[in-house]
């Protein structure tokens, strides 16, 4: 072919492709919102304050930060997301443990479960004191600075506490709530392994081992914690830097109380630091094991550590456990540590005051060609699942970033 | 003590530039306290020969003998003086001189005392604590001589030691070298490409051709010392040497 013929051919091809691109039908412009995934909740207030997002959904205390820092308002708490009543008491964080740890060291797992239950009870009975303990653990009781505004971490936590429900019992409805998450994660395409096609009964068998909860409950009622055999090995317990893990923080900081009243304690080795890394599990006066408290950035990271047996138990959200179990990690959900405890925040200038007006706002912005940008803390997280459901339920279609 | 170089041959298996350094059946002897100069064109034949004697390289065949005993590799009875870059810049002048003594196991403080005497011999007592970079080229070569003498060798092997210096310094150092030689009574093999230098310094000239290097002439120099570079006698001997070198058998390829 001559050069000029080649060039003409290429030009015609290019024009044809261009026209094809232009006449490909695009999705309807109405009712669209943009959903982006932030890495955790940390960047969210900054994103809202700089106008890069219009709203976010996050676990406490990040929602409470917005009104206190003057950058936004809490639209509603997660339990109130539509449809009405669906998300009440939705599952959130759990205590999980490796299957082999439960099998080989049942008394130890029962003891930790019992301490968690006792500590959760304490948190519900002493919310202000517990909020302070959480503020100490997370921020050394210092201030949070957002922009020019400084707020006391103690105030933030105290304001956040009432919105978190600290409960442990793996009730029927609670287990069903978890199953609903499994369905939602399947729809998102996150589950491709052992949980991809299971029936609900099979899912429950794979995911849960609530034996330790009931044994712990029985021990508490009988008044004696069974002393586990001393373990030479160090036990790793993972946790997240969130007030959802209040039970753990209170158990460690108030170890003396639990030791004196119930004969079980997680006694921190260094009692001067805000975030102890090492503790000793003491039951009925005997040291049972050295415990390493391992903070994680996010649930999936903790599950990764659990899969290599670097940690044996973890306080995490349920989606990471579900995803890990799906991949074959021998991890089980033992009991709940909280339900609800998340919130939706909108910018200061937003006209929304409740979900209905929020939807109206979204539609108006979409029609104006500037769809709302909403941030969730990670694909497949509880917050992500809930907001997607609620948005779609309200006839809004999601543009993924 | 007699040093005998017997049939030293060095082949280079890899063809190319290296064959310039080849040696062929080099044989000569050096008597005790003799000052011998190995004279040859610029190139590496004579340096290769010296390095073989010093034990830094190996000959393909032939041997080096002292009093009939074959020596292989380095001998403690010899010390070598290089043309340049041989002083250790991180050591003071004195500590450069002590190097060979330290290696021989002498204690540092004792070695320093010994070094001082040799620095005195070469006239550098006051520079003992200086570093090589503070010294001129001529002074550095004096340090090199002191360092070699410190280990009390019987034979000094000198590879064009004054080649990098200017004419004035070179002449002065040649005179100083003769003084030291007379005082210390060493045997010296002095490699050079300068006929003037060889005639001024040596008792005998071993003249080498190149590619491969062979001994083409052995010329005794019958001039009394101290020799006068500008004198007639000197010029006559020089003329003689140049004529001998100009012969076909010594012709340089």
């Amino acid at each position, binding site marked *: 072919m001559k050069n000029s013929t080649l060039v003409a051919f290429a030009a015609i091809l290019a024009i044809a492709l261009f026209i094809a691109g232009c006449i490909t039908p695009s999705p309807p412009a109405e009712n669209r919102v943009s959903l982006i995934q932030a890495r955790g909740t940390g960047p969210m207030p900054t994103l809202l*304050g*700089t106008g890069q997002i219009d709203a976010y959904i996050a676990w406490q205390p990040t929602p409470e930060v917005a009104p206190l820092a003057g950058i936004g308002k809490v639209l509603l708490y997660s339990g109130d997301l539509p449809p009405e009543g669906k998300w009440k008491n939705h599952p959130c964080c759990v205590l999980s443990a490796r299957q082999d740890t439960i099998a080989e060291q049942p008394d130890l797992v029962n003891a930790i479960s019992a301490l968690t239950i006792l500590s959760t009870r304490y948190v519900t009975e002493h919310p202000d004191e517990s909020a302070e303990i959480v503020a100490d653990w997370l921020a050394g009781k210092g201030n949070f600075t957002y922009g020019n505004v400084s707020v006391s971490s103690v105030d933030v936590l105290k304001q956040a506490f009432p919105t978190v429900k600290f409960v442990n019992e793996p009730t029927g409805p609670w287990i069903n709530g978890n199953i609903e998450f499994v369905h939602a994660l399947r729809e998102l395409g996150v589950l491709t392994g052992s949980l991809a096609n299971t029936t609900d009964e099979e899912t429950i068998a794979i995911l849960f081992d609530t034996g330790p909860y009931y044994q712990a409950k029985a021990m508490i009622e009988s008044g004696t914690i069974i002393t586990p055999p001393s373990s030479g090995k160090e036990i790793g317990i993972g946790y997240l830097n969130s007030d959802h893990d209040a039970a753990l923080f209170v158990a460690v900081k108030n170890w003396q109380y639990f030791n004196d009243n119930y004969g079980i304690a997680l006694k921190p080795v260094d009692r001067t630091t805000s*975030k102890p*890394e090492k503790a000793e599990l003491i039951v009925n006066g005997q040291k049972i094991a050295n415990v*390493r408290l391992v903070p994680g950035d996010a649930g999936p990271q903790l599950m990764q550590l659990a899969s290599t047996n670097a940690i044996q138990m973890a306080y995490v959200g349920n989606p990471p456990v579900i995803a890990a179990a799906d991949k074959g990690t021998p991890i089980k959900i033992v009991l709940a540590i909280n339900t609800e405890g998340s919130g939706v925040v909108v910018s200061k200038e937003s006209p929304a005051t409740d979900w209905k007006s929020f939807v109206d706002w979204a539609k108006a912005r979409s029609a104006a060609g500037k769809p709302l940008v909403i941030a969730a803390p990670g694909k497949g997280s509880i917050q992500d699942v809930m907001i997607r459901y609620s948005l779609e339920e309200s006839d809004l279609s999601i543009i993924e970033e | 003590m007699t040093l005998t170089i017997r049939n030293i041959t060095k082949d280079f298996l890899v063809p190319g530039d290296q064959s310039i350094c080849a040696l062929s059946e080099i044989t000569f002897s050096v008597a005790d306290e003799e000052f011998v100069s190995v004279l040859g064109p610029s190139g590496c034949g004579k340096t290769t020969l010296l390095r073989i004697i010093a034990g*830094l390289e190996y000959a393909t065949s032939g041997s080096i003998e002292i009093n009939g005993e074959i020596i292989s590799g380095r001998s403690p009875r010899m010390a070598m003086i290089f043309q340049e870059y041989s002083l250790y810049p*991180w050591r003071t002048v004195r500590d450069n001189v002590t190097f060979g003594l330290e290696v021989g196991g002498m204690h540092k403080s004792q070695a320093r005392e010994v070094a001082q005497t040799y620095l005195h011999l070469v006239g550098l007592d006051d520079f003992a604590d200086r570093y090589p*970079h503070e010294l001129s080229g001529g002074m550095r070569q004096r340090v090199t001589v002191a360092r070699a003498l410190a280990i009390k060798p019987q034979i000094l092997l000198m590879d064009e030691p004054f080649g990098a210096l200017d004419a004035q310094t070179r002449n002065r150092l040649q005179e100083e070298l003769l003084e030291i030689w007379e005082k210390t009574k060493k045997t010296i093999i002095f490699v050079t490409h300068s006929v003037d230098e060889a005639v001024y310094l040596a008792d005998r000239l071993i003249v080498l051709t190149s590619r491969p290097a062979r001994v083409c002439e052995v010329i005794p120099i019958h001039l009394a010392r101290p020799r006068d570079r500008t004198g007639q006698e000197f010029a006559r001997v020089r003329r003689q040497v140049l004529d001998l070198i100009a012969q076909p058998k010594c012709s340089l390829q």
Partner: protein
Amino acid sequence: MRSPVPLLLPVLLIVGWEVAAHFIDNPFILPSLTTVIPILLHPFSDKFTLGTGSLVDNAAVSLFRVALGFALAALIAIPLGIGMGRSALLNNILDATIELLRPIPPLAWVPLALAWFKIGLVSIVFIILIGAFFPILLNTIDGVKSIKRTWVEVALTLGARESDILGKVILHGAAPTIWTGLRVGFGISWMCVVAAEWLPGTTRGLGYLILYAYNFGQTNVIIAGMVIIGIIGIVIDQVFKAGERRWFSWRALER
């Protein structure tokens, strides 16, 4: 530093920052330095650092980890580098492998480090070791190769054995280049401390502080952490430079 010129730009930047912050007037885009300065002015207080301990405590922890990783890297890299510089055979055997591993950034080793060394000091120190290792190794090889052949031959003719040559010639001759390798290596391992301390299993350190502050959106703490990291980096680099002036000035003068 004798002249004030090097300080000019930093001062200008600080002033420029404050002016820009005032004009932009959005503290999330450009936070005013008034939120960062108090943290820096109280380095011994633990009230400003979200319960991770004081800035000084965190700096000490990070320095300890980096020093450990750096020392281990030097302990392995220097002898290996001397071996590779002296022995063409060893160089040939190892060279391709080293060139393959060298471009991999230390951060990329994090998942493997976690899998091999579990949680704790070892995995953190490993990342730092990787960071320091290659500059030290390559500079050591280079330093050994740049040693003048005459220096070694002088030693041989004076009766030195291999151990003498190694201790009295090679180490001294290569020392300036090795020192440069150590300086560069330390700089890189100090940079790695942020990545290394993002490994789980620690609640202290400047790198950890930055990550933790990020998770809580505390930009002022992040900036304070960055400033401290920068200052320590400069100070240590100056220490290396001073060592070079004191011990190795002969190298420059040799030319």
